[in-house]
């Protein structure tokens, strides 16, 4: 519908749509201008001072070591590879932290609701203490407290081929030999078998009404068949055993204390937040639901599993997502206790050697942005799935 007097500017300005349009155009112009202004200044400043730009440095040798690398890495590798190593470290600690924090959070959240007074109180103390102390301090605590209580390598605590000392937990490192293919085949077979088992169990329930502990059974199947394959192929694995050497334990696989401390700090800290979310979620499920389930004769464990938790999840998931994001971002504090994650390697060492702040910080932000986005996309998908079932 056009206004008959739209020729007059006043009318034009009074039109709601036009006003919004003008405002938005101005806003866009401001944003673009500010962006352009900053960018040109940056270019001028960088050129003035002869600071190198671009990502060419990623192909140059890094020259520094990285303590924890899940892919092959030596000082002779490039900055690019160091970046990937750090990226993997960040992703690994984030995902493991998320898994562990979720477990801790759920356990503590349930503990806070326990009808054992003492347990509930202890869980409250746990939550209130860890939530209210800066994470950095907690990282220091875990790192230095872990180190303080462990023995020096000479006096390692030894369980068979496992060593525990200030340098970490050492375990045998499996190295595959010829014939390992059989084991892999056996493993795949066992997975197929266990899927079949689950399907069969479901069918049988539909026919006879009897439940079969299919998940435990398939777990057993997988272990059993794989083990059988191992025996048949004559154990085609050799273990690189850790051994005491002059300073350290060498060989084997090692879990360094930095990793343990960061993981523990991140997951206990975030776990405290998750505990509160879980508690609120469970409390949000009407008590009537529990009563109804009970009066149908469901056991308390089944009541929780079939009735309360599925409903609580709806309330839990959105804030849980934020906590996951926080955990991923907080992993950047690992730099303070020698965990070589992204901030340590890229914003720390690489930036210091190349002096290219813009590129390095840009890389970091990009990674964190992508990681956050992936986590929230996954959680949104999961959330949608849960709410679809409901309605």
């Amino acid at each position: 519908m056009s206004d008959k007097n739209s020729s007059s500017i006043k009318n034009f300005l009074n039109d709601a749509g036009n006003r919004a349009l003008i405002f938005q155009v101005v806003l866009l112009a401001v944003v673009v201008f500010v962006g352009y202004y900053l960018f040109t200044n940056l270019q001028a400043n960088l050129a003035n001072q002869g600071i190198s730009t671009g990502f060419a440095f990623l192909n140059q040798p890094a020259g520094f070591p990285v303590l924890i690398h899940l892919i092959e890495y030596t000082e002779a590798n490039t900055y690019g590879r160091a970046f990937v190593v750090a990226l993997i470290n960040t992703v690994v600690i984030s995902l493991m932290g998320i898994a562990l924090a979720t477990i801790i959070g759920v356990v503590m959240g349930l503990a806070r609701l326990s009808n054992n007074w003492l347990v509930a109180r202890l869980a409250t103390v746990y939550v209130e203490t860890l939530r209210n102390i800066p994470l950095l301090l907690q990282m220091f605590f875990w790192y230095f407290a872990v180190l303080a209580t462990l023995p020096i390598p000479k006096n390692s605590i030894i369980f068979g081929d496992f060593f525990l000392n200030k340098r970490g937990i050492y375990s045998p490192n499996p190295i595959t030999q010829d014939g390992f293919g059989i084991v892999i085949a056996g493993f795949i077979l066992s997975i197929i078998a266990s899927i079949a088992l689950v399907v069969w169990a479901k069918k049988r329930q539909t026919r006879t009404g009897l439940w079969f502990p299919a998940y435990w059974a398939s777990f057993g199947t997988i272990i059993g068949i794989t083990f059988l394959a191992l025996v048949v192929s004559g154990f085609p694995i050799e273990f690189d055993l850790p051994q005491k050497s002059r300073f350290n334990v060498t060989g084997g696989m090692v879990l360094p204390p930095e990793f343990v401390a960061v993981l523990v700090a991140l997951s206990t800290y975030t776990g405290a937040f998750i505990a509160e979310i879980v508690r609120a979620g469970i409390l949000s499920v009407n008590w009537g639901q529990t009563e109804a389930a009970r009066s149908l004769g469901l056991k308390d464990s089944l009541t929780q599993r079939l009735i309360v938790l599925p409903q609580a999840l709806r309330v839990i998931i959105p804030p849980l997502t934020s906590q996951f994001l926080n955990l991923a971002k907080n992993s950047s504090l690992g730099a303070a206790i020698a965990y070589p994650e992204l901030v340590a390697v890229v914003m720390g060492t690489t930036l210091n050697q190349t002096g290219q702040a813009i590129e390095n910080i840009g890389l970091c932000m990009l990674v964190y942005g992508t990681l956050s986005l992936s986590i929230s996309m996954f959680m949104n998908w999961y959330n949608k799935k849960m709410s679809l079932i409901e309605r």
Partner: protein
Amino acid sequence: MTNTNMARAQLAQGEEAIIEFNDVNKWYGDFHVLKNINFSIKKGERIVVCGPSGSGKSTMTRCINRLEEHQKGTILVDGVEMNDNLKNIEAIRKDVGMVFQHFNLFPHLSILENLTLAPIWVRKMPKKQAEEMAMHYLERVKIANQALKYPGQLSGGQQQRVAIARGLCMQPRIMLFDEPTSALDPEMIKEVLDVMVQLAEEGMTMVCVTHEMGFAKTVADRVVFMDAGEIVEANKPNEFFDNPQHDRTQMFLSQILNH
């Protein structure tokens, strides 16, 4: 005759009692909510419980399937004593269906799943058979066509009927109703009462807390009137309405019938 004596008299008459309250007392903290309840219900009997708000009607009903614990006296359901023994409680709960005032349907499950949940998990019934049975009861309450919807998509009256069907799916020997119509509008009340009347006519043991006096008059074998945690009066409906023994009952009836 004190109330207690009178109630006991009822007990003496009962043969084949399926529910027995013996000197049951219950406290919430310091608050004495059930006082010396002595009462027994015969197999197939239909009991309507009424009384002012807060008199302990819900509490008494919920003691029957031990949603509440009592602290003194004994409750026997089908000859089994209700105590801390989990096995007993589970066994009894299988035999006792309950319909709540607020339905308490499981919102995350479809109507059919709401109904088959207990038969499959508790009675270990084959899924197929459970579903057939569920459809049977849904037809009984005339909403078989809604089986695949979710509770949030049904009207109040429909939901309440699902709740009744859910209770029936356990094929219980006793049904407990706690004010099953008070959250509904008049039209829906009628729907639900119709279903209950039908059930009653089939001879199921029923305990029903309600203030629908029409229902009480039509189907109840006995009407129990409670106040302040005690059973004040329990009698056949016509006796109860026409000739209440206690002044308390009279007062209550005058209020409720004038409404």
